[in-house]
């Protein structure tokens, strides 16, 4: 059973890491857009 849970946990850990990477990039992009707006 531990192998089964390890596989499922690993799957979601990989997906969550990728989603976190996307969210971080979105946040950085939003900050850049705000900065551009302020400069104008």
């Amino acid at each position, binding site marked *: 059973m531990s*192998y089964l849970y*390890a*596989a*499922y946990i*690993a799957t979601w850990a990989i997906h969550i890491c990728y989603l976190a990477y*996307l969210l971080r990039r979105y946040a950085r*992009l939003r900050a*850049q857009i705000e900065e*551009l707006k302020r400069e104008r």
Partner: protein
Amino acid sequence: MKRVFPILAILTAVLLTYGLYGALIAAPTEKTMGDVQRIFYYHVPSAWTAFTFFFLNLVASVVYLLRRNPKADALALAAAEVGVVFCTVVLVTGPIWARPVWGIWWTWDLRLTLTLVLWLIYVSYLVLRRFSSSGQTPVLAAVLAIFGALDVPLVYFSIWFFRTQHPQPVIGGGGSIDPRMLHVLLINWAAFSCFAILVCWSRYHLEVLSREVEETQALESLLESGSPR
């Protein structure tokens, strides 16, 4: 897509929950391997999803080479990233399943090796996209994507034409599967496909937006350097 996104997100959540319930509880226990066989419900759909997104990457890359459409290039990049994520899941869950069943984590079997090569090709694709600043990068990446896609049918058909450690296909390859297991497998495939579409669309949107921001920043700095002081 903006209107469809929340509906697809809800559908994905429902399918993933139902798929998890089916995989861990509803599906019958396989006689030889026992409960560890339930890894199948995440391993196989992840492989199918990875193949689908590598195919999408190929189509977008060919469209980019033919029309030089930057949106096709952005879609190719998004599809490759999603494909690599799902291929990583396959390469991680495979050895976790192999250890209790075969007694080993890894073997240089044809299918396993070709899958690793496939993953390495697309990781190289992403590294090229990330670190090359040449104007020709999208063209080089599109050509690499075409060569990478050639490995997908090799991975898929390797167990049809060669004797490998990896089991024979249960669908379309002469094997059989319990209808309840097939149902859970297809639900999980639908769930991961919907999830992958959502993630791919988000990544595509992010790429298009970041390119627009980069262009605006470049234009602003040009205007600043050209303005009288």
